[in-house]
Structure formats: C-alpha cells, structure tokens
C-alpha cells in the first residue's frame, strides 16, 4: 500500500466506542485520518460527497439496525470496502454480510491496534483486487464480443461467395446441370446455409451473453407466427419423412412480443424436433391458454424422437451444450440454439422448459405474456387511486403518397413512432404498440389523459415534431384525429374501471384500424369518420388540420 493516508469513515453512534477506535487507529504505524458519523443517514450523506478508503461500520445505529445497515451502505458505495465493527459475535450475520460484499466482520471486544490496521489495509487490497478482476472480466467479454463480431463478418464473405456461385450453377446460369450434379450442388447449398446459420448464432449468443440482445415487443398473433414457422419448416420435415402438425386454439388472445424473435424461437424448436425425430414420426406445435396462469399463452413443440436423458434436461439450455449420447445422422450444430431461445423468451418475461423421457420424445414448452392493454394502461390513466378526469384516443395515420421503396417508408414510419413516443408525457399518455399491418399505411394510436379541449395543442405539438421527419413530408401524408373515450362510472373498483377503459379503447382501435382482416381494401373502407374534417361529434374522430 502507498504512503497516502488511509481515509476512514467511521459510522458509530456510541461516542466511547468511536473514541476507542480512533485511538487504536492513531496508534497504527500507517497514516490514517478518521471521519466520524453518528447516524447512518449522516454516514450515507458523507459517502455521497466523497469516497473514503474504507468504511468502518457499526451495525446498530439510531436510524438503522442489523443487516439493513450494511445493505444500505453497500448500495450507496458499492466500490468502497466495508468493514463491520460489531459488539455481537453473530457468525450467521457475519457470513451474510460477507456474501453481500462486506470485506470483514470485526468484534469490538477483541480490537488491537495492529489487528485493526491490518484488517483495514487488507480490506482495501481485497476490494482493489476484486475491482480489477471485475474490470478484466468485462474487458475480456468485450474483447470476445468484438472478436466474434469480426470473425463472423470475415466468415460471411467467403460464405457468400460459395452461396452465390452454387446458386448460379443450380439456376443454370452457367449452362445445363445434370440431375446428379444438381443433387450435389443442393447438398453444398444446404451445408452453406447451415454454416450461415451457425455464424449468425455465434454472434447472437455472444450478444445475449453480454446483455445486448434487443427485442421490440408489439401486439402479435401467436397463431399467425406458428403457422408462418410451420410453413417455413414444412419442406425440411417432408424431406425427412416427419409429419408436422399444428393444434392452435383459434380464439387465442394476442401476445406482447417481438414477432421476428418469437419466429426465431419457433423455428429453432421445430428444427430441433425434426432433426431428432426419425422418419415416420411427427412434430406437433400447440398453443393454448392455461386457466391457472391467465396472463400467459403456452406454446409447445412436441416430437416423437429419441428423447432426452434426465441428467441432460437441466443442461440443455446452457451455452454450447450438446447431448453426447444423441444418435443423429445429421450434423450437430454449435449448441447455441436453445441458449438463444432461452435468452429471447426470458427477455419477453416468459419461461422455457422441456419435458422428456428417453425414447419417448421431447416436449419443449414456453410461455409468452398476453398482450394486456389494461396492464399497460393502469399507470397511465390512473392518478392517486382514481381514474383520470378525461381520456382521449389519438390516431396518427401515415400514408405514403406514391409507392416508395419499402426500406425507406418502413424507416420513415419507425422514425415517426420514435418521435411520437418522445413527444407524449410518459406518465399520462401511452403510445399503443403498433399492430403489424400488411399495407404500407401505418396507424399509431395514443391513449392520452387529456380532454378534447386540449387535444388541438397536443396535436400541434405532435404534428410539428413529426413533420421534422424529412421523408414524411416528401413522400407521405400525415393525418391526426382524436376521439374521447367514454369513462366508466366511479362506483366500480379501480381495476375494473381500467379494464373497462381498456375494453373501450380496444373496440375503438378495432374500428380505427378497420376489420380484423387487415386486407388493404377493408382497411380503407373502415367506418371511421375520418373524411369529415373539422367536424366534432361525440363518438366520431375529429380531424385536426394545421
């Protein structure tokens, strides 16, 4: 340790004990200065101002006792070494303190000057070591991520080259190919695609590990996603002679999830199921609501394959795990698929698990949270235990003028949504998760805690901000409209009132977005009074033009 004086913050309420500690510290050979606080609140205030070398902490203070005391100090200053100085010889408490990050637990009775000096110096050293270990772990993780990102980029170039020329040969662009050659080329293409998927998984897993995976939840139909995934895997199943069956409750409610990521999970599970099921077997996807767990939808992918041994069940979602006993004619993957699936489902707030017996097949199940408007609305439309005085539903329609390139328009809409989210009040307005629309038109809905008189001001603000999106002005048309939400009577419990508002908003949104079949023509003919500008009637959309 250097010759720099050790700054000790002593948090101790007993003046006698404080003096004793001070005395012992002064007797030490090392240079020490002591700052004393008699209450936890004073100690925390001092920690907020400047950082001592070490905190000496009594647990029983006028404003805090026991474990609560060190928990608060660790929370306030997680990087400062904390040494407890206690009158009670409580081994259980001492261990608990150490597990939570306290460096040492000393007893007041057996305090010698040399012992205290050494304990403090070692506490400082240990804390410094821990910090540098943590830093180097973070650096290594960062380095590994950069390396993987670089590698997967470099691998993609030769991979692309093989992919391109194989498809050129297969498509006959370089002359006729006979049937046998075609088969070989298809095998190459299949392997190239596998390699591409592995490169993608590598990057995805490293991202998941460092908490950089992002999801963009919306209101989505799980039934549609299952049908899409099954359609994508049908060819592979057919080729292997494995049946692919779907059992989806058609009345399933929407879930709150990222459609691309859920599709990824489904495809991964289906791919595994098909891979481990012998010809003549079947893979079945089911989705249903479970009455005992009403906030989630349950999805399962069951196969009639070789099953999983009990020891492997706990490990199967770990990174890089591969069943060493799996008898499989196919190539193994990297062992990242289920790890990524677990990360994605957890990010959605769901669970994923497997039930299996060796030789009896496996059933992978996961849950996804239901899209609950009431849950999203509750903090926004209630204030101090009551419903807000007035609630309005705003509709922001974006319509492209001519048919632009899809990348551009999609990007324009996304930017408008970002801006919209930024120009509402987070505590009293809610931008509803966008519905997936089939056409280029995009409608965003905002539930706003305001009354119709103030809507024009809000709309002017939104319009001014949205029109800053250059492409929107150049290539699209913006229409804003609003309709008040009729509020339920105050007699019901608050939960019920919020649910009632959610139901009304849902019904209004359904009308606003057109009939459930989001075919373009149906949407355009939706019975919304949007072609009657400047006209205000109860229950009709009021268009605000700037």
């Amino acid at each position, binding site marked *: 340790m250097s010759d720099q004086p050790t700054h000790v913050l002593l948090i101790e309420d007993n003046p006698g004990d404080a003096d004793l500690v001070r005395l012992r510290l002064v007797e030490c050979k090392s240079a020490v200065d002591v700052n004393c606080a008699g209450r936890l609140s004073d100690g925390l205030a001092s920690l907020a101002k400047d950082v001592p070398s070490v905190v000496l902490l009594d647990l029983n203070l006028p404003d805090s006792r026991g474990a609560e005391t060190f928990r608060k100090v660790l929370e306030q200053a997680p990087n400062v070494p904390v040494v407890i100085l206690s009158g009670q010889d409580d081994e259980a408490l001492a261990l608990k303190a150490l597990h939570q990050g306290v460096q040492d637990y000393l007893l007041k009775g057996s305090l010698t000057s040399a012992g205290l000096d050494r304990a403090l110096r070692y506490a400082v050293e240990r804390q410094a070591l821990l910090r540098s270990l943590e830093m180097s772990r973070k650096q290594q993780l960062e380095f590994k991520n950069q390396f993987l990102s670089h590698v997967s*980029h470099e691998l993609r170039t030769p991979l*692309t*080259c093989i992919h391109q020329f194989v498809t050129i040969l297969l498509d006959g*662009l370089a002359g006729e190919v006979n049937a046998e050659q075609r088969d070989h080329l298809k095998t190459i293409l299949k392997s190239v695609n596998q390699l591409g998927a592995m490169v993608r998984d590598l990057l995805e897993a490293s991202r998941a590990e460092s908490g950089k995976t992002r999801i963009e939840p919306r209101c989505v139909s799980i039934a549609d996603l299952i049908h899409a995934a099954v359609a994508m895997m049908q060819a592979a199943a057919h080729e292997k002679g494995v049946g692919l069956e779907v059992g989806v409750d058609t009345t399933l409610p929407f879930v709150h999830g990222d459609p691309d990521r859920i599709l990824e999970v489904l495809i991964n599970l289906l791919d595994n199921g098909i891979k481990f099921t012998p010809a003549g077997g079947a893979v079945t996807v089911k989705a249903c609501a479970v009455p005992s767990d009403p906030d989630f939808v349950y999805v399962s992918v069951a196969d009639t394959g070789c099953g999983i041994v009990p020891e492997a069940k706990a490990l199967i979602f770990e990174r890089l795990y591969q069943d060493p006993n799996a008898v499989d004619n196919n190539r193994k993957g990297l062992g990242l698929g289920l790890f990524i699936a677990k990360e994605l489902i957890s990010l959605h707030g769901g669970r994923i698990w497997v039930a299996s017996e060796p030789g009896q097949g496996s059933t992978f199940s996961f849950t996804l949270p239901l899209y609950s408007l009431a849950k999203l609305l509750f903090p926004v439309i209630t204030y101090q235990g009551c419903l807000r005085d007035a609630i309005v539903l705003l509709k922001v329609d974006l319509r492209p003028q001519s*048919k632009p390139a*899809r990348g551009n328009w999609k990007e324009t809409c996304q930017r408008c949504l970002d801006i919209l989210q930024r120009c509402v009040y987070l505590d009293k307005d809610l931008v509803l998760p966008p519905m997936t629309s089939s056409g280029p038109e995009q409608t965003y809905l905002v539930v706003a805690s305001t009354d119709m008189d103030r809507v024009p001001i809000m709309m002017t603000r939104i319009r001014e901000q949205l029109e800053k999106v250059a492409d929107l002005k150049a290539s699209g048309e913006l229409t804003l409209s609003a309709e008040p939400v009729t509020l339920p009577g105050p007699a019901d419990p608050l939960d019920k009132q919020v649910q009632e508002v959610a139901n009304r908003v849902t019904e209004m949104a359904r009308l606003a977005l057109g009939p459930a079949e989001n075919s373009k023509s149906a949407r355009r003919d939706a019975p919304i009074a949007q072609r009657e500008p400047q006209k205000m009637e109860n229950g009709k959309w009021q268009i605000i033009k700037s």
Partner: protein
Amino acid sequence: MANHKILIVDDDPDLRQALRLRLRANRYDTVNAVDGYSAIAVAYKERPDLIILDLGLPAGDGFIVLDRLQRDDKLSTIPVIVLTARDPQSSEQRSLAAGAAAFFQKPADNAELLEVIRATLPKGTAALPS
C-alpha cells in the same frame, strides 16, 4: 429500350463477378467499382439507375459513399441498396438513415434481392426485365 444499368460496388472480385452474372441473367447491365473513391467516379461517369453498395470498402467506406451520393445533386436521386457482411443490428438503421433504400446482409436470398431491385428501380427509365 435499353436495360437498366446497375453499379456494383464491392472490393471482392469474386462477389462482383457472382453478382454480375446474377444481374445479367435478369437482363440488367452492370458496371463495377472496387472502392469508395471509384464508386463516386463511376457513378458520375456511368449514371447508373441503381447502386448496390458494400459497406466495408477501401478508400472511403460505404457510409462515406452514401453521404457523398446524398450530398450530390446529380447523384442523390439514384437509389442505393446496401449489401454487406456486417451485422444488421449495428448497420441496418444507420444505412437506412443515411439514405439507403434497402439493406441486405450477405449472403442475401437471390429472389428477395431481385424483387427489391425491381421495386426500387425508378419507373419508366428503361424496359423492365421480364
């Protein structure tokens, strides 16, 4: 009417050749550029109807090319499709924000790429390939 002309910007000669074969088979004419600097020069000289742009390029990467195309009155109307080995999570939004009409990660699905090329090409400038 003449075929549409597409400028391929990629530093990898094999990838340029593959893309050229694929585009010619779909009745597009192609011209090449091998780096960021020549991309702008060739775009000036050849006035392509569309540019397929790699991001990792010597002498000015793809984002610099996008920026220079956007700033140039004569070139800013040419649609650009980004085709790169880079990770979409870090480059897709940035490419679209910089003015690209679409983003594809390599290896791209041929049918999808051709469909987006068709949809992105300015209408009425040349005969549409069948």
